[in-house]
């Protein structure tokens, strides 16, 4: 495993071969905005929030999907990137039905926090107001497709961490939506172990504990690290 040196936002950093720009930046306290990335499960580059400029490349690159190279020069926070991220956020907000004021995750939502961080105070594209369903068939949890941003954290966590692979994505564009067990109501899923990991990793209020009132759903993500560290290092401690 060779060590590579690169420059991110003017600072020299090192990582090992195979590391992504996002990971190296993260370990050097450079916070790149993201919604689909989740430590412990593979990246898929779904949200495009972590776009960066790489010198010598004409296109922007998703930092979570870009492996580091020797001598690479990366910029993570330029005027152009800030504007693109803002527009991406506006597109996400316009595509679903994200009404914070009546959402179970109001005040505890990664989408809301990032929108605030990016300075999104209005949406410049027309809202699509798609008609989307709420699935409350599960005994413990609910799924509100209106609030889903298709980050697939739940899909990957259920598959890679729990090993149940309940979730998949179906449809395209604004019709893209989560399906349990090839399109069954979640409550009918034979694979679901009712562990609730998907709920805890969901960045928005799309997956929630049933019975939650407005603003009441707080996600606990610490458990994921607990499982991943336990598996990799055999250290079963709450705060590794």
């Amino acid at each position: 495993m060779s060590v590579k040196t690169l420059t991110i936002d003017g600072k020299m950093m090192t990582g090992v071969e195979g590391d992504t720009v996002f990971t190296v930046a993260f370990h050097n306290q450079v916070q790149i905005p993201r919604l689909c990335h989740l430590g412990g499960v593979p990246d898929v580059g779904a949200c495009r929030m972590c776009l960066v400029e790489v010198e010598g490349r004409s296109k922007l690159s998703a930092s979570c999907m870009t492996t580091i190279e020797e001598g690479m020069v990366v910029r993570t926070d330029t005027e152009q990137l800030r504007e693109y991220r803002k527009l991406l956020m506006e597109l996400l907000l316009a595509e679903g039905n994200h009404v914070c004021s009546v959402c179970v995750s109001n005040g505890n939502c990664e989408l809301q926090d990032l929108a605030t961080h990016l300075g999104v105070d209005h949406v410049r594209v027309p809202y699509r107001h798609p008609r989307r369903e709420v699935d409350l068939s599960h005994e413990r949890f609910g799924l509100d497709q209106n609030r889903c941003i298709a980050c697939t954290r739940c899909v990957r966590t259920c598959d890679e961490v729990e090993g149940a692979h309940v979730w998949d994505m179906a449809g395209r564009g604004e019709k893209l939506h989560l399906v349990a067990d090839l399109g069954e109501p979640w409550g009918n899923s034979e694979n679901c172990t009712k562990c609730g990991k998907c709920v805890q990793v969901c960045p928005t209020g799309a997956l929630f504990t049933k019975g939650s009132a407005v603003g009441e759903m707080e996600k606990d993500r610490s458990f994921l690290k607990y499982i991943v560290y336990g598996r990799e290092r055999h250290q079963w401690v709450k705060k590794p």
Partner: protein
Amino acid sequence: MSKRILIDPVTRIEGHAKISIEVDAAGKVSDAKFHIVEFRGFEKFCEGRPVSEMPGFMARVCGICPVSHALASSKAGDRILGVDVPLAAVKQRRLTSYAQILQSHALSFFHLSSPDLLLGLDADPKTRNIFAMANNHEDFVRRGIRVRKFGQRAVELVGGRKVHPGWSVPGGVTTVFPKEAADELKPWLPEMYESMDLALAWLKKSFVPLKAEIDAMGDFPSLFMGLVDEHGNLEFYDGKVRVVDSDGKVVADALDPSKYTSWVSEVAEPYTYVKPTFYTPLGEKLGMYRVGPLARLNVVKNAGTPRADVEMKDFRALGQAGIVSKSFHYHLARLIEMLHCVERIEELLADPELYGTRVRSHAEPNHSEGIGYCEAPRGILWHHYKVDGDGKVLKANLLIATQQNNDAMQAAVKQTAQRFVDPNNLSEGMLNRVEAAIRCFDPCLSCSTHALGQMAMSVDVRGPGGELLAHRER
């Protein structure tokens, strides 16, 4: 040739509306109508949502009385879960209900209606508002603002925020009432009593100069409907419905509010987005009823708190057989209720059960239908939901005070227009009297249509051919 006068928009009310006054060929006012011109569709777009979200969702119907919507909605949710709400949660809900009625009434009286009463109905519209009043009646205005502040702060301390608190949920509430909140609220009480006494004394003084208006701004027989407790006293959170007529006869008593559909009917009218209601057993014409402060004080035996009971004697003396039918006296009833609310808040803050730590009962939806009700500032409020087996809302019906007062407001507008509006010599003061008749009822138009709120209102005067004679808009 007949004509129409249009007042558009009507100002100093909560929401968007207009008034049209029809003038016949002889130049006399033949009819007048109050049109509520908003549409919102809350009942429709909550379909498919989890019932657990309903209180926070429905609180958004209104920025003035969100607590009432949250409470009626939570109570409907309690029924769907099929649980008994812990006593501490009931006390918290009651406390916020009193606090909200206090602040909402303060808004209606001090901010919206007092300029008419203090400065006169013919005063220059430029100065006939609370901002201009602040120059000459600073203490009065300041007191009004502080009463409202106290109510809002109490709601915030219990529910987490002043407007649209989401702490009340099906099964109870989400937080324990903090003892420090009582320490903050108690020192306000002496000032609140003093302000209410001053406001009452001041309102009563205006009865003499405004006698002509009081007698003709909505004085007519009707039914009155409101909740009463087990002693027949004022009740805002629970209780049974009592209906009395203008002669003081109890038309119906101890009606179960959760069976409202068997004695209240809604109808659709072409001139307004509101669905007016009537008391079904007496039919559409004779079944016109009023709700809200005036109706509540008419149906109860007593307020049930010492200071408010003293004021009740003066109130009763204004009517015949103890029933006050003049809509102007909604203002007095509102002030008496505010006094009652302050007394009840004081009682509750001293009640150890308010501070109980068991505040929520948990259950899955156990019933497919739930009806919640309470007295909102403007009158009795119902939320009625039907849900599927998973707890998703299939159908919702909201029955709101301003809806129920619609027919009475039409009657008040017509009576006032016929008495005060001279179509040939139209003056601003005449039209303001028509608006003031509406303000007595303190209608909330965004609530009543569950509709998108845009402030303002207007008056039309139209001839028999429908041609527009005059139009007033602010």
